[in-house]
């Protein structure tokens, strides 16, 4: 571009006119319209029965169900991560047998619907009367117990959720590890760092940057996925709500109780994800952006 106009003299500063975007304004008006329509319909339609919602939202029965949902999510996540990490490392190991075994496990549990896994596990006593641990093809046994006693609803739910979760988590973790630059492995090797140190101090912390967003997807998916334990008649948040509205026929307000609680869980997890991602982006980005809270504080101190 050439500019034929004379150069401005430094004594007369040029005025900056910000660019205007009329379509953006139109979009904002449209968004506001949608928002108002939603608020109006939710607030004024009496069939939402918000009084019932208020009555049940903090009811101990609901909270107990919520607690069970949270516990299942927590245990599924913790076992999923522990077992998933081991599976991912096995998948990356040079041992052919270990590698194939991990592959087969992941193949199996990614193939089966969670529902099916839970029901099969629940009926495990039909296959084996007793669960025992010993050395194959010998009579040596360390432990033996009737299956029915061992696999109650809760145990089945935890085992089933963890088993499936770990298969998915393993692939996410493996993806993160593979994504770390080869030079990092080499630099760690060149410094003579031992294997565990290379994995847990050098490679995994870097892999976590790629793992966390998809990892949180999995956790959030699990939090909602736990509702499937209703097939075991386990009173988690969703099943509790179901039982209650079948009795009272107040279907929508009770479903709203579950909806809002699931929203709360996901919101908390999303905020957590934001801060965890921030932590692991140290050193990776040129400048870490301030959190919304920090921005609010900056804004308030900037005001006179």
């Amino acid at each position, binding site marked *: 571009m050439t500019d034929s106009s004379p150069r401005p003299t430094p004594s007369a500063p040029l005025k900056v006119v910000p660019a205007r975007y009329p379509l953006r304004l139109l979009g904002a008006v449209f968004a506001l319209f949608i928002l108002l329509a939603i608020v109006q319909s939710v607030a004024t339609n009496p069939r939402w029965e918000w009084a019932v919602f208020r009555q049940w939202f903090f009811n101990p029965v609901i909270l107990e169900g919520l607690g069970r949902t949270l516990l299942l999510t927590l245990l599924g996540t913790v076992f999923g991560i522990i077992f998933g990490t081991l599976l991912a490392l096995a998948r990356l190991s040079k041992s052919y047998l270990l590698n194939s075994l991990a592959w087969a496990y992941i193949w199996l549990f990614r193939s089966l619907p969670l529902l099916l896994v839970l029901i099969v596990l629940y009926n495990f006593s039909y296959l084996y009367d007793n669960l025992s641990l010993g050395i194959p093809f010998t009579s040596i046994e360390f432990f033996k117990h009737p299956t029915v006693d061992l696999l109650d609803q809760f145990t089945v739910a935890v085992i089933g959720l963890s088993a499936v979760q770990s298969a998915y988590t393993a692939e996410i973790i493996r993806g993160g590890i593979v994504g770390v630059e080869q030079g990092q492995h*080499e*630099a760690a*090797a*060149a*410094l*003579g760092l*031992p294997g565990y*140190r290379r994995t847990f*101090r050098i490679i995994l912390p870097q892999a976590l940057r790629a793992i966390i967003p998809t990892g949180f997807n999995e956790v959030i998916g699990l939090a909602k996925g736990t509702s499937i334990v209703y097939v075991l008649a386990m009173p988690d948040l969703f099943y509790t709500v179901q039982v209650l509205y079948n009795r009272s026929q107040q279907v929508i307000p009770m479903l709203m109780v579950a909806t809002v609680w699931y929203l709360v869980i996901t919101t908390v997890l999303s905020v957590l994800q934001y801060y965890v991602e921030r932590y692991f982006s140290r050193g990776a980005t040129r400048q870490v952006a301030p959190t919304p809270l920090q921005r609010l504080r900056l804004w308030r101190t900037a005001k006179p």
Partner: protein
Amino acid sequence: MSEAFDLYVTRPGQAAPEAVAPPRTRTQTAGRIEISNLSKSFGLHKALNDVSLTIEPGTVTVILGPSGSGKSTLLRTINHLERVDEGFIQIDGDYVGYRRKGDKLYELKEKAILKQRIHCGYVFQNFNLFPHMTVLDNIIEAPIVHGLLNRKQAIERAYELLDTVGLREKANAWPRHLSGGQQQRIAIARALALNPKVMLFDEPTSALDPELVGEVLDVIKKLAESGVTLVVVTHEIGFARQVADRVVFMVDGAVVETGSASQVLDNPRHQRTRRFLEKVL
């Protein structure tokens, strides 16, 4: 061999040691590298073809050659980042990657190989600093993990090394916030933190902007005076002329010519060397 580095008190800056350093002294020793009949293939491609080379302790050897001539592969084998197919390498008489008993070579286990690597500092073309750790953490990681120094000593030593490379004020910076030249200088400090007998540089300035090359070469020159054995793969002919005690020219996985810098660079005997120098000079 494992006791050779309980010697953290010394640092670069002292006179070059005698030609053949006694293996277990309490001063920093330079390593003698002996490469015998080394061959290495990647599939059908022969990356190294019967390479033999002796590198005297405390000297600076610059390896030149067109790309794909096996320079980097040779360097990587010295640190056992790459396994060899035939031949062997000795540093101060110890076989790299093997233990000799009678006339048999036993392959070392992972752990022992890691121990061996302590004696060999390696500087990469792409720096490979750990981006999630501060500069200081990068430097103190290895000496602490190997139990050579406690945390306090390691930090003290790290600051000494940062002074050597002129970056004391960057101790708490993140690697990615530094320029390429600064990152490479930190990488050199990190390698030096293990007090190696041998320092290997794999094209240390190839990833740098031209105006940053000088600062890295200056640090390497400083090291050359300190008495550590240096092996540098580079394309900087000027650097070779200034610093190298010996220049090795490689083509197609084989050593074509070796000699002093003036010998190889000014009066090359081989036509292949001459053609290469015509292109780069």
